[in-house]
């Protein structure tokens, strides 16, 4: 089965076309174009102030675009107020009505539809079951724990069976352990209800775990839209590469490329390295190469069979239990990071500080990008 975004015949649920949003003199969104398909779990990822929440509020109808168009299900949403959109939102603060019970909160939106009383009651029960809060229907929001509140907010937003659910940092207020557990719950509920989810988050792990696709945003622009694997393994820019996980960055000048692979002259080491070009690169152009630390192999002897290798001295070792991170000082003074699994207990003299070592990585681990 091909994914909808790879299928040229698929119709997107949301079409965001060159959307710009300014607040006074501040540009929050700058010509954003994006398609989101039915059934997706789509993440908007970026640092705070990158415009991701503005984009979400624009979809919800809480902000009006300064320029461009938003289509949801084929309809231009300009001037359509939030109460007339088949879209619901889960707010970052949850925004639970403090004067209503859990059941009252879930029923709130249903009461504004044409449903009968018994139909509303049935739907409320169904939602309570979905989020496993059957016993707490009569409680008020202030009598709930953070995790329970989060689930009420989710149930309330899903009660009207919206085509599209917007989630603004849905796990931001939970502690780390609960957050991980809830991620899977959210994915289950998304699959069960077959609703399109658009989630805003600044946590890359959260986006990587849950999303079918991720849009990485910065300064009101979209840097890259891709699946989590491709975002991580084939970043299209240095900004995306360094936002998603730690990375080593090598500077150089491209001296050969056939589109599938390329070599460049690593300026500080004056030697040729190979990698896969992320963008079209011309020979003689300045470039940067990103290498993930876990792809870098550390050895005592020179691995002559590896095309990309460099020598250095171990400066410090961070032992993290399952993995260790090695900081290796190269002869030009820069520090290179390598990370490896701790499969066997380390012998104290195996890889000590001040040992001279070789670092190497395969061609497929190096991605060559425009600076």
């Amino acid at each position, binding site marked *: 089965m091909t994914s909808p975004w790879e299928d040229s015949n698929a119709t997107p649920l949301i079409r965001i076309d060159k959307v710009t949003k300014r607040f006074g003199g501040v540009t929050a969104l700058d010509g954003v174009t994006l398609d989101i398909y039915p059934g997706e779990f789509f993440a908007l990822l970026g640092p705070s102030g990158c415009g991701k929440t503005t984009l979400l509020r624009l979809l919800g109808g809480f902000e009006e675009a300064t320029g461009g168009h938003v289509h949801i299900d084929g309809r231009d949403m300009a001037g359509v107020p939030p109460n007339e959109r088949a879209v*619901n939102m889960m707010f970052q603060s949850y*925004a639970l*009505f403090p*004067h209503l019970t859990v059941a009252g909160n879930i029923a709130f939106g249903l009461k504004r*539809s044409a449903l009968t009383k018994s139909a509303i009651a049935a739907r409320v029960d169904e939602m309570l079951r979905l989020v496993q809060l059957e016993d707490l229907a009569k409680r008020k929001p202030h009598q709930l724990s953070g995790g329970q509140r989060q689930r009420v907010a989710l149930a309330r937003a899903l009660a*009207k069976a919206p085509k599209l659910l917007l989630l603004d940092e849905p796990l931001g207020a939970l502690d780390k352990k609960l957050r991980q557990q809830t991620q899977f719950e959210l994915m289950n509920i998304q699959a069960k209800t077959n609703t399109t989810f658009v989630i805003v988050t600044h946590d890359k792990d959260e986006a990587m775990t849950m999303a079918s696709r991720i849009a990485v945003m910065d300064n009101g622009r979209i840097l890259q839209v891709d699946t989590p694997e491709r975002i991580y393994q084939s970043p299209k820019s240095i900004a995306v590469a360094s936002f998603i996980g730690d990375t080593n960055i090598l500077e150089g000048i491209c001296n050969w490329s056939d589109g599938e692979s390329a070599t460049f002259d690593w300026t500080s080491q004056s030697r040729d390295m190979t990698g896969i070009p992320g963008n079209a690169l011309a020979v003689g152009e300045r470039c940067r190469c990103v290498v993930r630390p876990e792809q870098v192999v550390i050895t005592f002897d020179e691995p002559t069979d590896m095309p990309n290798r460099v020598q250095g001295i171990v400066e410090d070792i961070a032992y993290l239990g399952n993995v260790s991170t090695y900081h290796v000082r190269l002869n030009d003074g820069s520090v290179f990071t390598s990370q490896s699994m701790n499969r066997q207990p380390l012998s104290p003299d195996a890889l000590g500080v001040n040992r001279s070592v070789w670092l190497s990585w395969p061609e497929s681990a190096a991605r060559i990008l425009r600076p």
Partner: protein
Amino acid sequence: MRRLLIAIPYLWLLALFLVPFGIVLKIALSDAALAIPPYTPTLALDEGWQSVREFLSQLDLENFVFLGEDALYWKAYWSSIQIAFVSTVLTLLVGYPMAYAMARAPRRWQPALIMLVILPFWTSFLIRVYAWIGILSNEGYLNQALLAIGLIDQPLALLNTNVAVHIGIVYTYLPFLVLPIYATLERLDESLLDAARDLGCSRTRAFWSVTLPLSRPGIIAGCLLVFIPVIGEFVIPSVLGGSDTLMIGKVLWNEFFANRDWPVASAVAVVLLFILIIPIMLFQHSAMDKREVTA
């Protein structure tokens, strides 16, 4: 140190707030006499237990019976409650939109707006009531203006009527109502309104189903802050009201200063206090609630 901190204000309030009420109660249960002090004390504690027993046996409700028999008092209590109720509703109708608009105004204006509401509250109450005489009298500014634009051809009799009393109450008590309501509206999390809109409410509907219920603590506190003192109000009915404006504060004042019947005046005060106990307890409850919420 801590004991002293509690004891000093505690004893002060006991001596100058609670004990005086005991005395009022005691005098309300005594006979009227003409001499000054114009009551015969029925309880003389220095004569010991014997006198307490005597006191209890001849416990005298005659002043209360007198209040019950004379229609004037009942009418005055009832009319005070009516006037207080109507003017509280009127104050709410003027004050709620103001508080709402203040809470919705741009943040940087809000301190100035609060200041504008508080400022009249600091200027003399008596003077603010007095200001309305010039406006409402037959030759007053309001009648002058209405005659000038030809809306009326006879001056309206406003001063010395209940209409003037209502206007005076709304005017002087408005800040008491605006501030608590503003405080609850200002704290209202705006994402709740977004959520209501998201779940299908129009702006008006969102106001009725979210904003209004959530500002209820402020409305209750504000209304009680108007209703309770207005029942016992003396200055406004005596300055702006007419001879037919019947309010219990005025009756008590006359009973005390004109008729010099202290036992009856005390009985009037005791009954007034009983009428007010429930609203006062409601007010304290709401004040405590608010403190818990802010804590």
